[in-house]
């Protein structure tokens, strides 16, 4: 499935016009950004912004409703992630991830956790079990090597003393580090971390930063990071993408993003009176309704969440309780746009003619500022099918 990429560029991951809908809910709407090789790209945004959903699309747990996810490997091959089966994304495209709600093999020891992560390599070495069953030496050396690699990452994660304890017995911070170590044992080129610093104390948080910097500097692995802790984000990331209600509202260096009023508004919110005035000004036009075309059978959550496989929520955990019913004028960033009344481009990366739906969906954007945009429902489908 490795398409000849137009140019081997420095973007390890290109997300183009990614949309993900759950029935009527638009979790991600026409999101485009790039993660550059060898950098730490942070994905931030308020709760329910759709960050975890982006990860689930990248790692194949969800099939995106629209859009293209291209991963360019170091050897020049590139993969369209939305077309790869779930388990081939780590195996072939070399994307590893961690989960927001930690998913360790809690009844297995730390060492075993890291050995499971090297499954594919060891499977080959054991001749798909057959040779290994008869004790061929090739498997024995591969097995010893895998233990060495596991020890290496246990040392990095400062967990080597507890290598023979069950993973479920670790304190929370150590479990987070172990999950990262486990992901690194798959030998990834892109490491996706979902809120690795959540629930860590300042000291653990420092250790985590050091670990991530170490990974970035010494392995050349690029990192895509979801994080709420701004201290972590500002300190270690090279590039920040800000999401709000599934749309990108800002994209740039940590410094640029921090001073972007849209981002500030998204995080701090604008006052209620302003919301009122904004809504009156805008005339309450709702573009999102055009996207809300009801449950979409063909573009629903991926095969993993088929009827038989149980509900998606069962398949991939996501933070519960933050169902976003994208209401009219909910986007705080959009309100800022509306309030300032200026024709501010949605974000540096988005050229206006290219992104009609994004502009539209910045709900409260004054109608006068977008006169040229056609508002046909078909518009929102132009990200290109993923099937």
């Amino acid at each position, binding site marked *: 499935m490795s398409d000849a990429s137009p140019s081997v560029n420095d973007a390890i991951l290109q997300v183009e016009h990614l949309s993900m809908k759950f029935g009527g809910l638009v979790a991600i709407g026409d999101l485009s950004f790039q993660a550059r090789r060898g950098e730490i790209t942070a994905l931030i945004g308020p709760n329910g912004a759709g960050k975890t959903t982006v990860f689930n699309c990248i*790692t*194949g*747990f969800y099939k995106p409703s629209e859009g293209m996810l291209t991963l360019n490997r170091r050897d020049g091959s590139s993969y369209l992630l939305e077309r790869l089966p*779930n*388990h*081939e*994304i*780590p*195996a072939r495209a070399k994307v*590893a*991830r961690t*989960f927001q709600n930690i*998913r*360790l*093999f*809690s*009844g*297995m*020891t730390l*060492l*075993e956790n890291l*050995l*499971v*992560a*090297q*499954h*594919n390599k*060891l*499977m080959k070495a*054991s001749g798909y*079990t057959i040779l*290994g*069953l008869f004790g061929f030496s090739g*498997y024995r050396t591969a097995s010893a090597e895998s*233990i060495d690699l596991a*020890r290496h990452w*246990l040392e990095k994660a400062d967990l*080597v003393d507890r*290598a*023979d*304890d*069950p*993973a*479920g*017995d670790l304190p929370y911070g150590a479990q987070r580090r172990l999950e990262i170590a*486990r*992901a690194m044992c*798959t030998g990834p080129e892109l490491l996706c971390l979902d809120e690795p610093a959540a629930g860590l104390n300042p000291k653990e948080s420092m250790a985590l930063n050091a670990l991530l910097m170490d990974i970035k500097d010494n392995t050349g692995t690029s990192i895509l990071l979801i994080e709420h802790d701004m201290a972590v984000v500002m300190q270690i990331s090279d590039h920040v993408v800000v999401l709000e209600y599934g749309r990108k509202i800002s994209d740039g260096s940590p410094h640029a993003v921090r001073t972007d009023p849209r981002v500030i508004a998204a995080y701090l919110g604008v006052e209620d009176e302003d919301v009122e005035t904004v809504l009156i000004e805008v005339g309450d036009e709702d573009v999102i309704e055009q996207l809300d075309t009801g449950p979409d059978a063909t573009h629903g959550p991926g095969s*993993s969440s*088929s009827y*038989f*496989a*149980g509900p998606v929520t069962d*398949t*991939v*955990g996501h933070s519960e309780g933050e169902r976003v019913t994208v209401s009219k004028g909910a986007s705080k960033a959009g309100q800022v746009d509306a309030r300032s009344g200026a024709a501010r481009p949605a974000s540096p990366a988005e050229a206006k003619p290219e992104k009609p739906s994004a502009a539209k969906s910045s709900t409260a954007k004054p109608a006068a500022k977008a006169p040229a945009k056609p508002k046909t429902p078909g518009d929102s489908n132009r990200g290109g099918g993923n099937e």
Partner: protein
Amino acid sequence: MAVTTSPERDIVATPMQRATREALYAGAIALGLFVLFIGLRTDQNISNELILVQRWWLLAVVVVLTMAGRFLYVAYGQPFLANQKIVDVATGLLPESMATRFFRLPYFIAAIVIVAVLAFLAGSLDGLLGPGLAGYARFLRALAIIYALASVMFYFRTFIHAHFSALGITALALYPIIVVLVLALYGGSVAAGFQGSLKWVDNYGIQILIYVMLAWGLNIVVGLAGLLDLGYVAFYAVGAYAYALLGTQYGLSFWILLPAAGAMAAFWGVLLGFPVLRLRGDYLAIVTLAFGEIIRLVLINWREVTNGSAGITGIPKVTFFGLMTFNVSDPNYIAKVLDIATSSAYYKIFLYYLILGLCLLTAFVTIRLRRMPVGRAWEALREDEIACRSLGINTTTTKLTAFATGAMFGGFAGSFFAARQGFVSPESFIFLESAIILAIVVLGGMGSLVGIAVAAMVMIGGTEVLRELDFLKQVFGPDFTPELYRMLLFGMAMVIVMLWKPRGFVGSREPTAFLKERRAVSGSFTKEGHG
């Protein structure tokens, strides 16, 4: 009938009062539960009419027994158990454990004496005590033997614990020899020893080992991969019929058909696996259950091939690796070749070692596979399927291999079963068998080979023992058949074990690799899997 007692009353009430009260509640509940089950019974009279038989006496006995049991437990049992945990003020030690109080040298000597006396009187028991009391005497002797053996095991418990597997295998390997020797000494001749050993080797040894093998096979699917399979008996059936049909129709030897039966069962495992792989939890359980039933119904209804419910007879015996046979009429009958007395026990003993070998093969492969990537992936799948996929593990093929491997051992066991019985019919492959095998896996502790072997021994051996309790006929009347109560006892045993050890006999898990030291993982961390 909610029993709501306020905490104040509990504190005020003496144990006796509390016990009386709880006994009354228990009696009321028992009455409510059993009034229709035990108090009334439907029966047929001579003219085939349905009549109600009233059994109020039996009901009263059951209710009173329940009350007495509850009373004793609350009045004496609970305080006693609480005391066990209280340290003695004077010595600073916990009280002696129940076990050390139960196994004492004087008791041991008494048990030995009882065994010796009763064994000495064995021949004349009936004459001395009459047939009724003689039954009790024999039961007493059995209890004394069990007690004596248990005492010895208790005395050497640390040693046994340390070398459990080695000792277990040695004991199993020596079992037929010991049985024959003991019975030969007892009966006074080698022939009597062989003759008497039939029951012990066949009903206990082979029977238990078949279940050990089946449970070990199912353990791969349920215990390791965490896929709840309620139709495991289907693979057992496939193996049995594969040998029965190919053996009778084409006269192929057991040694060719054993691997063939395993391969065929594995093939069916993959066939079943494909559609059900996407199912999880309850759905998977139901579909596998249905698969088991489908296989059985096919066996019943496909008369031309399977001979329907009449089954297949005349299945050839296993040969001694083609060198000798166990058919008296053959020229190379084992007794003729080796020039020894004719006895049917040779075949049973041979079968015993055969199934023991198959069991050891299963254990070996399981242990080996657990340390291989595929085995680790099975366990990882049980722990967290999502995480497995995020690590690039193809969960589909991993589940399929678990299904196929488990099915293969089921197939081996099936062909052995057919060879041992000489006869197969669909009746042997009912859902209850699947349930029993699963119960053994759960009781033993999912994933633990030793625990499962012990569970099989207790459950299957225990139900076999029921057949021995003939003297109960004197108590409950001549039409009392203790075997019929085996499911009741099975269920009770399961409830008790699950209360006492919710994770089964061996709840902990042996890690498959270690850096510094191998430490068992407590059962509280492992998951049962849900797909």
